[in-house]
């Protein structure tokens, strides 16, 4: 077997491993709070009112436009509120939520029987079903899947990311052990949808069981299942593409430019549900783990279920907790447990609150250089980011930082490097925008000058022309007058002669 290795990265064993990742089904909640997708330009608007009765699977919000994306009710009941609530997002912003009070029946909408032989559908039809099922990238990115597939039409290779991305998360592992058949079918659906001839499912080599179960269900010669080293950032899209296909995609370019489509394995399962069973995305698998829970576990829960109700099943201790959504590396700390599970909630970390070690100065030890998967020099970048010397930071390829936090993890001085980098990027962005604005203003000013000049020139030219014309006319007039005078004189002469 080919060995798949990449430079940099850190090996972090799962801090809270469990023997067999089972998936515990969580009963539909009493109340579900579903937040609406708020991507720029693609804001979803509710299409139900407070007090409306809704059924499980019913569309309750969608974006406008020709190809809308949807949110569906995850339980049946009555719409209790449509309001802004804090959502787990790094910026700490509020988002619009639709809150449904359960009627306890979990009554589904009528699901149309659909053609299970997806190969007979046109790829556009497959994409349409994916869109109508409200599927977004479930690995954490949350980008609408149908758009990603449409962009990658004609891709050569489909890569299914089953690497779990971050230490501690186990939901993909569990998913693969539970739904191997569905995943393989889902991959076939996706290949049909994007036109890829070949698919690679990448699994980290510490998930032997998951690997075996997929292998058992794979009868398609065009689908390859490979094991890659368990090393953090192996799951970052561009790193994964490099590992598997040896293609390096520079910043500013996309996988689709290179004929590659990457999808998370959770998304693939959702695609299976959507295309084969015609079921919308209303539940997902979530890992609950961390130092404060006695039983780290995976749960399959309806979207909108509160964090608290799933965390409670993992037996948390009574100490003060630090809640984090997403992985230990790139997740977001949330102030409290008052959140609900969304389409991208892959993991909830419940840790005992600890003091962060104090930050010391950089000793230039170079440990960070060693682990950067993109080959940057975090220590130099840090220097320039700190002093806000953006030109230099850009020289050192700040733009290529994927904010994976590998460098943070190894820094013996506990410098939050990635945080500096994300800040510096934002700053640079702002500066360039200002620069652009200034440029536009200058251009405008220069143009105005030019216009004034031009007007002046035009006007003087016009004046000159007019003068010229006038002169000509006058001259003409003169000749005319002369002619008349001559004629008059002639007449007079004639008259005189006659007399």
């Amino acid at each position, binding site marked *: 077997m080919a060995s798949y290795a990449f430079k940099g990265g850190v090996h972090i064993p799962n801090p809270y491993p469990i023997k067999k990742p089972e998936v515990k089904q969580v009963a539909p909640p009493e109340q579900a709070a579903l937040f609406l997708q708020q991507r720029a330009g693609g804001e979803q608007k509710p299409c139900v009112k407070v007090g409306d009765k809704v059924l499980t699977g019913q569309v309750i919000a969608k974006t406008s436009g020709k190809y809308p994306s949807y949110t569906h009710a995850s339980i049946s009941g009555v719409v209790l509120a449509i309001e802004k609530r804090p959502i787990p997002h790094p910026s700490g912003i509020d988002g619009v939520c639709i809150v449904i009070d359960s009627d306890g029946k979990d009554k589904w909408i009528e699901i149309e029987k659909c053609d299970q032989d997806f190969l007979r559908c046109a790829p556009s039809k497959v994409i349409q079903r994916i869109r109508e099922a409200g599927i977004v990238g479930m690995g954490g990115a949350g980008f609408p899947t149908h758009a990603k597939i449409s962009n990658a039409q004609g891709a050569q290779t489909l890569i299914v990311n089953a690497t779990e991305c971050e230490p501690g998360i186990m939901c993909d592992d569990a998913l693969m052990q539970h739904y191997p058949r569905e995943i393989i079918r889902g991959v076939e659906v996706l290949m049909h949808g994007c036109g890829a001839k070949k698919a690679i499912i990448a699994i980290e080599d510490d998930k032997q069981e998951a690997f075996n179960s997929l292998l058992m269900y794979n009868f398609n010669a065009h689908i390859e299942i490979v094991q890659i080293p368990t090393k953090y950032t192996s799951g970052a899209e561009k790193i994964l593409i490099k590992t598997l296909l040896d293609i390096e995609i520079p910043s500013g370019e996309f996988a689709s430019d290179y004929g590659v489509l990457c999808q998370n394995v959770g998304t693939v399962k959702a695609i299976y549900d959507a295309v084969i069973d015609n079921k919308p995305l209303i539940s997902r698998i979530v890992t609950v783990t961390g130092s404060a829970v006695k039983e780290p576990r995976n749960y399959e829960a309806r979207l909108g279920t509160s964090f608290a109700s799933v965390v409670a099943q993992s037996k948390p201790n009574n100490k003060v907790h630090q809640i984090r959504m997403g992985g230990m590396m790139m997740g977001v700390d949330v102030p409290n447990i008052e959140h609900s599970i969304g389409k991208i909630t892959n993991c909830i970390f419940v840790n005992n609150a600890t003091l962060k070690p104090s930050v010391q100065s950089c*000793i230039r030890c170079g440990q960070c*250089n060693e682990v950067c998967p*993109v080959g940057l*020099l975090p220590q130099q970048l840090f220097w320039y980011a700190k002093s806000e010397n953006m030109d230099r930071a850009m020289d050192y390829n700040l733009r290529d930082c994927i904010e994976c936090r590998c460098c943070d993890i*190894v820094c013996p*001085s506990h410098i939050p490097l990635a945080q500096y980098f994300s800040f510096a990027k934002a700053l640079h962005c702002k500066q360039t925008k200002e620069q652009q604005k200034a440029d536009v203003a200058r251009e405008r000013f220069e143009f105005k000058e030019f216009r004034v000049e031009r007007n002046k020139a035009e006007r003087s030219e016009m004046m000159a022309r007019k003068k010229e014309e006038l002169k000509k006319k006058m001259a003409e007039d003169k000749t005319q007058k002369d002619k008349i005078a001559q004629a008059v004189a002639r007449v007079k002469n004639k008259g005189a002669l006659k007399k």
Partner: protein
Amino acid sequence: MTAVFSSTSQMMRQVIYALVLGISAAYAFFGWGIIVQIFLAVVVAIAVEATFLKIRKHPIKPAIADGSAILTAILLAISIPSIAPWWIVVVGVSFAIIFGKQLYGGLGNNPFNPAMLGYAFLLISYPLPMTTWASEFVNFSQAFDVIFNLNSNMVDALSGATRLDDVKIQLSLGKMMSELNLHSSAQAWINAGFLLGGLYLLARRVIFWHIPAAFLSGIIVTAFLVSLGDGEYLPVQNHLMLGATMLGAFFIATDPVSASTTPKGRLIYGFLIGVLIVIIRTFGGYPDGVAFAVLLMNIVVPLIDYYTQPKVFGK
């Protein structure tokens, strides 16, 4: 890459542990002097560092706890002759901490290796005590007497052949290499101690292989080229196992703060230090070249770093 250091002080501690073998070897041959010097140096370093932090109104405890001042003190104490008078180490360590580190804004901001700055200062200012080495095992009370000047005859009694500079003098007197008694077994043992310690650091990934490897290659290549010339020159193996070679390769040139940080940069940096060491040893006026070679290369580190940026993903 799995080694994750939980703190800077943990890294510094690893370095200090790694020095133990070399120090033990020095102790075994030349006695208590080195132990007294280290002790004295550490006390002075902490006192000076604390005073300075207080003046600069910086928190004292974390800076002392990071272990860097202690490490600087130990490196300097090892580098000077074990029977040097007490004020040598006091002046040297103070100079190293104040001018080598604190005046630049503390750990992480110093362009020069503080221990080597202190050493160079001492060597220039006080050449005699800085080149008077012990010739035999010095017991505890003797060490005390000689370091604290309690018995002025003691120095002459204990000091003898100096190390590398002696080689040059002897050679210039027309002796053949084979006739020289270089105390080479003692020095080789000490160097072997530091070599083993350095390998430990490599294994623990506190330091990376680039600098020591390049440093030693620099020495080997240059020493070989020099030995091709006419006249008697120190052979390659003696360059490697004499003087501060191994200490320099694994502990001094690798000081992260003042070294180059890019992988390619580290190779260039290390190699050129090795080259300079042999040149200074062979043609220069000073006995050993490690300190000057390191300091000279410290100056060009920013340049090296800038021109040796690694290839970035996708570019």
